[in-house]
């Protein structure tokens, strides 16, 4: 018998601080698998967000920088423009990208910067104790929407991928999910395509990854998977929203 599945090289062999059933662990692993399969570990520079994944550099075995909250795309722009031969990606959650960072993500996509963005959407702010995110669903209870998100006071869930897809500068945008093995494999395909986009100098790529947050959804990990499947995908349909190269 031989080993057919083991931890990939770029993913450090440590316990993560992520909660039981959190999607960050899977997303981190997929990115590392893609980087190792493409053989680009020594060229890759990651930009870590502020959010649950703020300590991502403790789990990735390549060059990583932190960034101020929301500013990952601007930091990535600076790095990529100075060293275009590096593969530069950002990893951001719903606060980082869809709230404070909306200016940066829109303009980075609009300029068509040749970077890759992995956007982890779990419809809540995890690190700061479960507040509403721009991606929180209508009626969803969070620590700042204790009665359920009401559109009259808090607006609508923000569909970032659709927003960015209309910009001519966006190259490849796909929304994927992590709630089943089949979906995870599709997510990995999309992430690989996004990194390949950058390697081929095709421009801006973004993969929105629907993910679980059992603790702040108040659900068991098992039920959190069901919520992604039955509720989140209704609001955030999966699929390719833009692919300039196709």
């Amino acid at each position, binding site marked *: 018998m031989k080993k057919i599945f083991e931890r990939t090289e770029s993913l450090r062999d440590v316990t993560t601080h992520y909660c039981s*059933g959190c999607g960050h662990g899977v997303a981190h692993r997929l990115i590392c698998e893609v980087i190792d399969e493409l053989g680009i570990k020594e060229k890759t520079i990651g930009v870590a967000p502020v959010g649950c994944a703020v300590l991502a550099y403790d789990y990735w075995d390549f060059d990583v920088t932190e960034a101020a909250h929301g500013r990952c795309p601007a930091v990535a722009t600076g790095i990529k423009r100075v060293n275009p031969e590096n593969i530069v990606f950002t990893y951001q959650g719903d606060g980082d990208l869809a709230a404070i960072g909306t200016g940066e993500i829109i303009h980075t996509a609009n300029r068509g910067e040749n970077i890759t963005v992995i956007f982890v959407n779990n419809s809540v702010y995890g690190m700061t104790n479960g507040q509403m995110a721009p991606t929180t669903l209508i009626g969803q209870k969070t620590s700042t929407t204790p009665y359920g998100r009401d559109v009259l006071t808090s607006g609508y869930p923000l569909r970032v991928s659709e927003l960015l897809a209309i910009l001519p500068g966006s190259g490849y945008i796909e929304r994927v999910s992590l709630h089943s093995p089949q979906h995870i494999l599709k997510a990995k395909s999309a992430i690989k395509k996004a990194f390949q986009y950058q390697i081929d100098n095709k421009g801006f790529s973004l993969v929105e990854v629907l993910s679980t947050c059992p603790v702040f959804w108040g659900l068991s990990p098992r039920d959190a998977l069901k919520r992604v499947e039955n509720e989140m995908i209704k609001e955030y349909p999966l699929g390719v929203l833009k692919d300039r190269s196709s």
Partner: protein
Amino acid sequence: MAKIEIREDRCKGCEFCVIYCPKGLINMAPHLSTKGVRPAVFNDPEMKCTGCTFCSIVCPDSCIEVHR
């Protein structure tokens, strides 16, 4: 013929592997691990594991190695 190895010291007890094993070969142990959770354990007396790797794909903590 195939088997898996689960690292008990990394398992956080999310049960994703239990849910997705097509043959139902994984369940949660009755004891508590050093993490204070019931860890997943592989139980395949009839050697039914096909090495599909679903368990390792869904595991958020890279606890599972698959051999085939």
